[in-house]
């Protein structure tokens, strides 16, 4: 009796899932598989034909692709650690018992992460443009005698993208850390304080180990986010000057929809991103496992 019932309910489970599953097969799995097949094809007269590994070999001789990969990694290596460290520090302060006006600080610090990527990118582009507020302030203070073209200088252009991303995403990560910190029992901190541990010891010996899973999660999310960076470079610098700020995703977009479209090559690059993401995730899990 019981078993028969179980079986008949199982069917309903599938019905509940069916809609999402159908959409998922059509709009996620099918495109992902087709993209993988395209990665081994090239356009030849209006048709695509199989060319083996040609697209993957081409990548290693493609200066713009290598530049885009370099830029993406540069953003990742500089921006992710800076942002996560800042977020962790801010979250620790916001969690301190003595702090007043907590709600105000919290709301203000979370606020940047409600802006759309396009909107904040444009704001930062305006702030750092030749007649933007940054030049105005620096000239007013006497630091600069004439406005500087930050976005035309490749080092500055990259720095501005990193600054913008830190502004947009730090608060977002604070949300995670703060939630995790609030889950650590207050007694743990108090006991450590009674035992004479100072702020830094508490941070190193209690906060960091307790937050390890969430630090791993935010690291993976941020590295994946950076590997897919598009809206920012598209709207702050258009990838320039001279491709100095172009990212891999931006380059895939250009290869697909801006230059003479080569869907095969673009797909190959996108699978390169998948491959890098998997490798990075394995490394991150490995590193966080080893410290135990």
């Amino acid at each position, binding site marked *: 009796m019981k078993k028969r019932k179980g079986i008949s309910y199982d069917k309903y489970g599938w019905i509940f899932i069916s809609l999402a599953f159908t959409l998922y097969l059509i709009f996620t*799995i099918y495109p992902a598989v087709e993209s993988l097949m395209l990665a081994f094809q090239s356009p030849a007269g209006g048709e695509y034909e199989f060319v083996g590994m040609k697209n993957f070999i081409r990548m290693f001789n493609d200066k713009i692709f290598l530049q885009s990969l370099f830029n993406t990694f540069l953003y990742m290596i500089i921006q992710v650690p800076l942002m996560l460290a800042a977020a962790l520090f801010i979250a620790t302060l916001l969690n301190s018992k003595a702090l007043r006006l907590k709600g105000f600080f919290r709301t203000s610090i979370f606020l940047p992460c409600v802006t759309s990527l396009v909107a904040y990118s444009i704001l930062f582009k305006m702030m750092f443009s030749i007649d933007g507020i940054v030049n105005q302030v620096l000239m007013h203070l006497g630091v600069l005698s004439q406005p500087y073209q930050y976005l035309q200088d490749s080092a500055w252009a990259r720095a501005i993208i990193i600054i913008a991303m830190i502004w947009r995403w730090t608060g977002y990560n604070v949300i995670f850390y703060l939630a995790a910190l609030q889950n650590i029992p207050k007694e743990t901190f108090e006991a450590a304080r009674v035992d004479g541990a100072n702020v830094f010891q508490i941070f190193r010996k209690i906060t960091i180990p307790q937050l390890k899973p969430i630090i791993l999660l935010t690291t993976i999310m941020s590295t994946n986010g950076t590997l897919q960076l598009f809206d920012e470079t598209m709207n702050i610098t258009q990838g320039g000057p001279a491709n100095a700020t172009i990212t891999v995703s931006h380059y895939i977009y250009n290869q697909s929809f801006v230059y003479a479209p080569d869907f095969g090559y673009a797909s190959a690059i996108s699978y390169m991103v998948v491959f890098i993401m998997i490798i990075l995730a394995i490394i991150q899990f490995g590193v966080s496992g080893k410290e135990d």
Partner: protein
Amino acid sequence: MQNGRLKKYVMSAVMYVFLIIIVAISIFPFYWMLSGATNVSADITSGVIGFGRALKENWMNLNASADILQVFWNTIKTTGIYTVLAILICSMAGYGFEKYRSKGKNIVYSMFLLSMMIPFSAQMIPLFKMAAKADMLDSHLTIMLPTLAMPFLVFFFRQNFQSYPTELIEAARVDGANEFTIFFRLVMAPMKSTFAAAAIYAFMKQWNNYLWPLIVIQSNEKKTFTLLLSSLSSAYYVDYGQLMLAIILATLPIIIVFLTMQKQFVEGIVGSSK
């Protein structure tokens, strides 16, 4: 003793100063766009950061360069419909995975989770080809369809349905309720805050969607806010005043949602880490 106390005061003073600086950095761009929307472009580029009187002028200019009400309606429409459909589809799936566990479903669920690793760039070309073949380019439906079944939301709902007591479902079955009545009448109501958090997440996702609409939408009449902002800012002559006003109009709805439902918003974001 006094020394220790002094040290404590200095420490907390440093903490407040630091936090106030962080808050100032966080908020300044918002202030700048608010004040900018009330100034003419020439004033903004000459360093005026107080409030001016050109709000109306900027509004007229913005209306002259784009049909702003149409863009607003397009964004509201696509985001609204998307949000309702996405939370309906994903909550049903999450419920199915959680309350009707079986081996087969667990395999399907793992597939959902794994695909969170596939970047959109590895899907967009076939999606574009599909849309072109189906003659569905430049359509709002096409903007919504590909991401309706969002793996993250399925995961989020499944996590949250764990806390819904299975005994209540069984009791309702004994009373003769059918499975769908149970879900739509019994389960949904007490899970309101989960649904609110998911709705905020989906809303933000679609409101800010950029790359896919950029590929799909071609005509001005179908444009959403992100596309409008992007094209206004890359014009040969950029009018700062009207651009700032456009950014405010594009950001304000989300700020309002955030300020009024901060708790659910935070839950929605943190939900992924439970």
